[in-house]
């Protein structure tokens, strides 16, 4: 069942790179659908913080590819900018 369709507020976290085009397009897609989200840009983090964030992404997506979109703390994880999967997951 789509997360938004359940009527509960959805928490969306986008693990991204500032240079990544699929990340840019995913964020644009969420903006266009008025879905609030938190974007975390791993390439803008340094040293230990970056390592820590990579570990965090790996928990949801072992390949640590971008974007990794985490819904409601991991209820659903969408890897890459897959429009139809996102639409389905968010009930758009």
């Amino acid at each position: 069942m789509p997360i938004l369709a359940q009527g509960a507020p959805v928490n969306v976290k986008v693990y991204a790179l500032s240079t990544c085009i699929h990340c840019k397009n995913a964020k644009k897609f969420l903006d266009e659908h008025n879905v609030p989200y938190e974007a975390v840009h791993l390439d803008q983090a340094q040293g230990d913080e970056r390592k820590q964030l990579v570990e965090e992404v790996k928990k949801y997506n072992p390949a640590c590819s971008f974007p990794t979109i985490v819904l409601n703390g991991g209820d659903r994880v969408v890897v890459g900018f897959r429009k139809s999967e996102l639409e389905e997951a968010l009930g758009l």
Partner: protein
Amino acid sequence: MTAEKLYETLKKIQEPKGNYFNKDLENMTMPLLEGLLENKKTYGYMVCPCRIASGEYEQDRDIICPCAYREPDMKEYGACFCGLYVTEEWNAAPEEEHEYVPERRPPEKLAF
């Protein structure tokens, strides 16, 4: 170096070999080339804009553009992982026929 200059330079080298730039210049190719130039400034080499770099040249070698995975990805999907390089057929096909290219780089290559 500007993204436009990089585009012209690479186009001459890559297209005769069958590696075409994504025809969506505005939303794909030019921002990706900007990303490559930004990474050159940050890391000293043009590492893939869609992958996380370690900053160590040896560890990032397989993801320096054109990455080691471009050829198999273009063969299988008609496009590389980030979508900068595509085949002529991919450019000619309607968007809905484009399959999303999954990450081929083995997770153990991640230097973190």
